[in-house]
């Protein structure tokens, strides 16, 4: 086995020096009845060149976005991953290390996470950020748990315009904890303000929205925050970090906890994971936060250094009294975000956000000028928007695919009443030429003579 270093001679001698008669002896504690008496029924080992070929074969059975122009968004975004990010991530001192329990030999990971925490605070307008959570969905669920602990209340009001998979995750997390999730309906692409006014009351621990929301629309976030505050409920915002290059920091309009999906910050799409959940909050709630936190301190010589801190919240110390069960998180994805944001910098993130915004608006304008295409919602939007198609949506997507374009998501998948509405996304990677082809394809002005249709 090529990853084992012991030779047959080594093995024999080591077993004997351990005082065992043979390798079977070493497993003598395992009752005979539960010993596996046959080889595992798995394929035979593969030499590296064969394995590389095999992996390429499987991967080429997928439609890679290197070959297709992708207009899908909905929580996973085709932003460019700069070479510098992936190459620094391949520094094996980073990726082959574990959680930095021994700070003297882990300053690289610790300082990078401290920098990441600072960047998340800057983006969100919050005072503290943790070292990462699994993804945006679980981060939102953790925010619910913090809010209920902080307020001593057991009900949250969750906007129906939040990503459906995030809402599902929240419901799974609170299922057996006696927390009521009141879902506020959505109208016209927004969280319905009247319904919200009725649902939020003095029992409400938090009001949760997504900004921009699942439909890409921008919520009247400051007003929703006001509604929460009137009842001393916390205001939780699930934000797209890229949008924060031009959109107001949630901390500036009253958010108490800001969470979100950080995949777009230098992490590949990778068919849905690994992604990066971020969670930031006000200083007063720091001791209720889940997961790792890196703090600054000094060594014996007074030099600045970094450690995992406030660990009395965590499972390895507090066991069943911990604020969360999380142990392994998404540190390397957080490192990717730190490198990415350092590389883009203050001006770069603003330009990135504006590119997405302009391209999405160009695409929207072009699409709704096509025959049989209309705007689904009137709300302002950032990089995603929905359009209603008169033609069958699946047929449109099939036609686009022939032109090497992956069209948008059928909203009917999650919202039956929006069946036939297509959710589209433009990142900085979508070129004008691709957008023009998208519009031509959706409008049916190309490929009309293709006998396949």
């Amino acid at each position, binding site marked *: *086995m090529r990853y*084992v270093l012991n030779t047959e001679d080594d093995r024999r001698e080591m077993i004997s020096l351990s005082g065992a008669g043979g390798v079977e002896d070493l497993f003598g504690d395992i009752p005979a009845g*539960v010993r596996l008496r046959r080889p595992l029924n798995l394929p035979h080992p593969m030499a590296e060149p064969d394995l590389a070929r095999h992996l390429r074969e499987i991967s080429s059975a997928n439609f890679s976005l290197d070959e297709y122009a992708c207009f899908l968004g909905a929580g996973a975004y085709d932003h460019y991953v700069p070479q510098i990010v992936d190459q620094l991530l391949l520094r094996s001192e980073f990726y082959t290390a574990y*959680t930095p329990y021994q700070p003297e*030999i882990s300053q690289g990971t610790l300082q990078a996470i401290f920098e990441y925490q600072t960047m998340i605070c800057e983006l969100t307008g919050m005072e503290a950020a943790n070292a990462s959570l699994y993804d945006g969905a679980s981060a939102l669920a953790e925010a619910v748990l913090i809010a209920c602990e902080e307020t001593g209340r057991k009900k949250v009001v969750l906007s129906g315009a939040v990503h459906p998979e995030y809402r599902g*995750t929240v419901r799974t997390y609170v299922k057996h904890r006696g927390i009521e999730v009141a879902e506020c309906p959505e109208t016209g692409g927004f969280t319905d303000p009247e319904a919200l006014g009725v649902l939020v009351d003095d029992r409400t621990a938090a009001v949760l929205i997504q900004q921009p929301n699942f439909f890409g629309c921008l919520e009247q976030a400051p007003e929703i925050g006001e509604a929460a505050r009137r009842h001393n409920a916390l205001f939780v915002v699930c934000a797209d970090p890229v949008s924060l290059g031009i959109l107001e920091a949630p901390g500036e309009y009253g958010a108490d906890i800001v969470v979100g999906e950080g995949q777009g910050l230098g992490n590949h799409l990778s068919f849905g994971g690994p992604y990066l959940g971020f969670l930031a909050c006000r200083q007063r709630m720091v001791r209720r936060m889940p997961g790792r936190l890196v*703090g600054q301190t000094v060594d014996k010589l007074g030099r600045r250094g970094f450690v995992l801190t406030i660990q009395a919240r965590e499972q390895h110390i*507090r066991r069943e009294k911990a604020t969360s069960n999380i142990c392994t*998180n998404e540190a390397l994805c957080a490192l990717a975000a730190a490198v990415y944001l350092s590389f883009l910098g203050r001006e770069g993130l603003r330009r990135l956000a504006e590119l997405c915004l302009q391209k999405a608006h160009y695409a929207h304008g072009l699409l709704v000028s096509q025959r049989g295409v209309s705007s689904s919602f009137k709300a302002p939007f950032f990089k995603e928007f929905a359009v209603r198609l008169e033609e069958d949506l699946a047929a449109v997507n099939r036609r686009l695919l022939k032109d090497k374009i992956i069209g948008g998501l059928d909203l009917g998948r999650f919202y039956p009443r929006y069946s036939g509405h297509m959710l589209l996304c433009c990142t900085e990677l979508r070129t004008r030429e691709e957008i023009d082809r998208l519009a031509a394809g959706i409008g049916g002005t190309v490929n009309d003579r293709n006998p396949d249709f």
Partner: protein
Amino acid sequence: MTETLIFELGASGRTSSPLPDCDVPARPLKEIIPAGLLRKKPPGLPEAGEAEVARHFTRLSSLNYGVDTGFYPLGSCTMKYNPKINEYAARLPGFARLHPYQAEDQVQGALRLMYETQRYLAEITGMDEFTLQPAAGAHGEFAGLLMIKAYHDHRGETGRRRVVVPDSSHGTNPATAALCGMEVQQVRSGRDGTVDLEALKDALGPGTAAVMLTNPNTLGLFEREITKIAEAVHRAGALLYCDGANMNAILGISRPGDMGFDVIHLNLHKTFSTPHGGGGPGSGPVGVKSGLAPFLPSPAVGFDPAGGRYYLDYDRPLSIGKVRSFYGNFGVVVRAYAYIRAVGGEGLRQVGEDAVINANYLLSLIRGTYRVPFDRRCMHEFVVSPPAGFKEAGLHTVDIAKRLMDYGYHPPTVYFPLIVEEALMVEPTETESRSTLDAFAGALLEIAREGFENPQLLREAPRRTPVSRLDEVVAARKPVLRWRPPAAEE
């Protein structure tokens, strides 16, 4: 040696932004976005150039210690070598550049890889069905316990809310039970370090939902009475959960499914060689016996032999639902798949054997100097306490750990499990050579000698690291969790 913070580097206005120019007609921002939603003050991100960023993070990496740097015997974490072909695999464009909402016929390769991995893991563990959705071990525990709760509830046994864990269990076990809204009951280990069967039987009752065990346990000892334990648990109407953190010891040798476990989570970042990443991403697949399969998270990856197609199955009325977005840490699953295909079934068995050979060999080299609280044959890891006389000299496990860094090693896990005083938990893994183990044992023995002859050397360790011991008390008491520009400081 320390490194300047990225915020302290760079210069106002410096940028190496890689972005293209805008190729569509741009409209004024204020026409598009209501003024109240526009950002007034830019985020205080760094203003450094590409070369500066590359150097900064490269220098930071040099302050780190990974498996590629040297021996990393962190018990319970299985810090084995991470094969480089895995990194190649995960970065193939067909895997890395794939959107989770692409139509099924565009992602057949990805679904096939997931489906096959599920089948491999089922064979390795003796379980019937697997989900790859959980993002880490603790997340797998969460999904597993929720399934157990759903199973009992579905049978009308809604009163089963108690989870029994041994006092040697990982902290995630009781923390997960609490997260699921269940009660935790801890049972004491027997004198030999394994589960005390009688104490466990006493703890079982009509309110017991599950017993969570790690086997081999966190002391590196195999639960010899595992089949009797399983019998007692099932007789009480409860289910047996396997924390698969220590699966490396028994690959190809024994299967939790055959021992009577009903649910198991694996850690692909431990047993299946995917990198730990400085604290993730990992992956925590969960395997179940067929009776629990209807409760697996949604969606499941299925295969239709008639059409020869792989698909995502969302139509699962009894499912516990979503535990996260999309389908799991796919990029990590790709690496684990590459590993399983590289080593095959026979290779996995050798992994188990050599992990156990290495641990027993290393233990034999230091036994007699370091105290062994439960001195019997170990599996893939063992727990020792500092040499006799250390306590009297005012020396602790932490001093040994810090001194090991001066010898160029990553220390073992310390102060865990909690039932052993001053524990040092050592897991060498199968990817280390005899000469590495000899040298490491030599360092441990040398440190034992230093402890008596020059205890100051241990107390002041480490000296050869970028920073010396850090003040963790100050860090926790007055938390500084982010950088602020000097002007903003009080």
